[in-house]
């Protein structure tokens, strides 16, 4: 029962925060220099289309009414029409979202697993050469400049050696050909995903390794480790079942916290590789002054971040009974 109350309370908090973000965006939009109407209206449209959008968004109404229109539109999923693509924004978002999810979740999960694994070993071997090397490598990976690293990978593995394609998510030749079946298409996507995946994986793994290592170092000092050893358990069991299990908990919460950094990195990676995801659309939309698309992408990412934090909090509360309140 406590968990249910906890979840409900956090959901309410998230709803409030999201509402605040919506409002702030609304205010910023009106505060920015220039004409808000011009920002939502494509200059290439006919006067009738312009009229239609203005009435839909309520841009000719007083501010309070505009706000209500804004909320109503948002809740009903109407985000306007993208200037650049000439399509409703929601279509574009639904089309791009799976790509981002694919890339992002794969890299995060792999990085977390690898980071926890190696962080555990590094902490266990603290002070020795292997630990020093692992820590320094992790530090380097953690502070890498993502776009530069991505460019390096493209240059070396894509251009010079030619193992991987330079950008995009698919090779049109493969998909246009009627003879290709699903596994071949899937393989094509995977082939294109390798470089962006590697970029995100390396950078995130560094962070998780460092986290796990610090967490583990703290755990190893606890009394129950001494007890476990005294009981006669093998070192490996002590390390994996007693120390690592508990040390992994803070790493899980920090997946939520570090989401902000990972998303920054994700957007940069998507841009460099022109991976058609939400991050890349946001960057390009900003560059094209495509406000409806940019705003919608941002709100989507904000929603995802808040939800992810909720999930992480709940998971942590589930795994660690001490913090349920």
């Amino acid at each position, binding site marked *: 029962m406590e968990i249910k109350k906890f979840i409900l309370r956090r959901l309410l908090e998230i709803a409030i925060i999201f509402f605040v973000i919506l409002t702030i965006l609304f205010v910023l939009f009106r*505060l920015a220099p220039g004409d808000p109407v011009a920002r939502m209206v494509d200059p290439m449209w006919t006067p009738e289309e312009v009229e239609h959008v203005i009435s839909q968004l309520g841009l000719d109404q007083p501010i309070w009414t505009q706000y209500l229109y804004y909320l109503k539109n948002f809740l009903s999923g109407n985000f306007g029409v993208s200037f650049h693509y000439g399509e409703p924004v929601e279509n574009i978002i639904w089309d791009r979202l799976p790509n981002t999810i694919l890339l992002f979740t794969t890299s995060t999960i792999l990085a977390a697993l690898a980071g926890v694994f190696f962080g555990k070993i590094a902490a266990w071997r603290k002070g020795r050469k292997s630990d020093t090397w692992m820590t320094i490598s992790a530090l380097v990976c953690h502070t890498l*400049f993502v776009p530069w690293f991505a460019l390096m990978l493209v240059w070396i593995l894509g251009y010079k050696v030619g193992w991987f394609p330079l950008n995009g998510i698919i090779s049109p030749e493969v998909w246009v050909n009627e003879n290709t079946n699903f596994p071949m298409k899937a393989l094509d996507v995977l082939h294109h995903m390798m470089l962006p995946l590697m970029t995100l994986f390396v950078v995130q793994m560094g962070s998780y390794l460092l986290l796990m290592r610090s967490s583990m170092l703290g755990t190893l000092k606890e009394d129950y480790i001494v007890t476990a050893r005294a009981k006669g358990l093998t070192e490996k069991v002590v390390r994996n079942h007693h120390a690592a299990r508990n040390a992994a908990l803070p790493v899980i919460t920090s997946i939520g916290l570090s989401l*902000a950094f990972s998303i*920054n990195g994700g957007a940069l990676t998507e841009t460099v590789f022109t991976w058609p995801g939400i991050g890349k659309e946001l*960057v390009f939309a900003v560059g094209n002054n495509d406000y409806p698309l940019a705003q919608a992408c941002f709100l989507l990412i904000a929603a995802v*971040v808040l939800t992810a934090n909720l999930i992480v909090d709940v998971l942590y509360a589930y795994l660690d009974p001490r913090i349920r309140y």
Partner: protein
Amino acid sequence: MNILADRIHLIERLAKGWAIFRQNLLGKIGLTLMIIFALMALASFFTPFLGPTYDPMTGVDPEISHATGPSWRHWLGTDFIGRDIFTQLLEGAKIAFMVGLSAAFISIVLGTIVGMLSGYLGGVMDTLLMRLADMIMVMPSLLILLLLAALFGQLNIWLIVLLIALLRWPGVSRIIRAQTLTLKQRPFIEAAKVAGASHLRIIFRHIMPNVLPLSFLYMTFRVTSAILVEAALAFLGFGDPSQVSWGMMLQWVWKTGHMFQAPYWLLPPGICISLLTLSFYMLGRAMDEVLDPRLRKEEHSG
């Protein structure tokens, strides 16, 4: 006399801290790297003496007007319109330090004040401030800056610094708040209250000095994220176009399609960004060991 004893005590602590710091490999590497970059940044003040052809922004070499490799005249080669890459690199070092240190400084000032107020006053203020901090902390800063750039046009470098600071203070405030909470219980605070000290005086005269080492520690981490965010913003083309930062240099390589042909242009800025952030981070970790005795290695050699 009291002051003299305090000063001696402080110097003793600093000396002890330095001894511990010196044993730390990470600290040494970090410090060395940072000194190298600081020298580079200082050197950038002297490049105007080389003449107008070496100006990072406008110094076009009249004899070379395209990207060339390293040579005696241009140690790292030239970019796509013939500007010297090495001087650009030095200028970038100066900007990185400027952006990193100022953004970090402002954010820890904000974070420390908020943390102290929050921890000391408690109650509704505490909850409100911490909720605000949480909200800001989870948002991806780069995307917020992008959106602001979209709405308000090209951002001036100092505005970028301020915005980065405003988005980064929450991280520090949590730690400071925790520290303030523990300090609040100590007898010397009680004593000050009994002596009639006002809240403000207690906060700034008694709590702040004990909290400052922690603030400075976290300043190093703020520097790393500030440098990375500014570089990313410049890379995407939304930085201050009048400043030649390392991120801007990478943007030029990328946008002019020279990434594959000009490694002498692609490699240096990226390596510099990574190494500088690395050095600050290592420094932060080493200082962490100095401040937190639990993290020190058990074996002390000499």
